[in-house]
């Protein structure tokens, strides 16, 4: 009975990884094809709800808050279940579905992912599933990388940033495909 439950869980995890790989591949291809996102930063300042208008920034207009919220649920679930962080989901969701520029989407995702991850990290912490010896050095590396990345982000050409992000999406899709096929843990 217990063995059957474990097999069911592994099959569900493989299916989830496969679906996520397909989603990442779709997001990567869409980002290559649609450099400005689906919400046009048009001249009509009166379009959208008052809340959406209040969230717009210089040169762009935010839309699709409902789609963004739904994407956030997917991003949070994927972050907690697969341990990859929600960035690969939330950046394409904000950029392609909500019309947020790539740099702003990356910065916003950075802020959000900390909150998303902390909710699931507390659960893992209470279950004793966080290894401090692995998490400590990794967190130092993340801090150094995030500090350097946020300082150079504004100096990098947006096309290079886009290609880098698509490369990360494709690599993550590749890793998820390996997990779905049982080739990786």
């Amino acid at each position, binding site marked *: 009975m217990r063995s059957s439950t474990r097999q069911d869980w592994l099959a569900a995890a493989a299916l989830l990884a496969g679906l996520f790989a397909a989603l990442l591949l779709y997001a990567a291809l869409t980002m290559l094809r649609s450099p400005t996102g689906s919400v046009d*930063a048009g*001249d009509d*300042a009166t379009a959208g709800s008052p*809340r959406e*208008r*209040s*969230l*717009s*920034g*210089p*040169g*762009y*207009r935010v839309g699709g808050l409902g789609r963004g919220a739904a994407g956030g649920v997917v991003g949070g679930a994927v972050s907690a279940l697969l341990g990859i962080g929600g960035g690969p989901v939330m950046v394409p969701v904000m950029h392609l579905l909500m019309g947020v520029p790539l740099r702003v989407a990356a910065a916003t995702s950075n*802020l959000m992912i*900390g*909150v998303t*991850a*902390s*909710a*699931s*990290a*507390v*659960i893992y*912490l*209470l*279950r*004793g599933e*966080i*290894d*401090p*010896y*692995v*998490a*400590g*050095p990794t*967190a*130092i590396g993340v*801090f150094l990388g995030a500090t350097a990345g946020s300082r150079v982000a504004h100096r990098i050409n947006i096309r290079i940033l886009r290609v880098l992000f698509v490369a990360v999406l494709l690599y993550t899709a590749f890793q998820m495909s390996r997990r779905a096929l049982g080739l990786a843990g």
Partner: protein
Amino acid sequence: LTGLPPARPATEAPEDASLEDAIARLLTLGTYAAVALLIVGVVGLLLGGRSPLDGGPRLDLGRLVSDLAALRPDGFLWLGLVVVIATPPARVAASLVRYLARRERGMAVIAFLILGIIALSIVVAIVSEG
């Protein structure tokens, strides 16, 4: 493009700005303190001849205090990690205070909901483990 509304009010009350500065400084200090604790912990681990791949202990609050008092690396690592995990919710709590001070009801509700979801996830984890 012109004619788009600004993302935030163009003017800000001085007391709001000073509150924001204080919160930002506190959070930055918290992040640097967490990283400093982690560096001390990792260096102590390596000096003690242990590998990060050896597998560390679970978090035990009682032991955390004694580890810190005895300057053991495990204590520094766990305290640093707890600060790392606590920083994002602290940032949301700080935002909630800021929105309430500015009377931005909509954003205050969103910040409150986020804190509520984090609290709920903790309660669910405690109940399901207990």
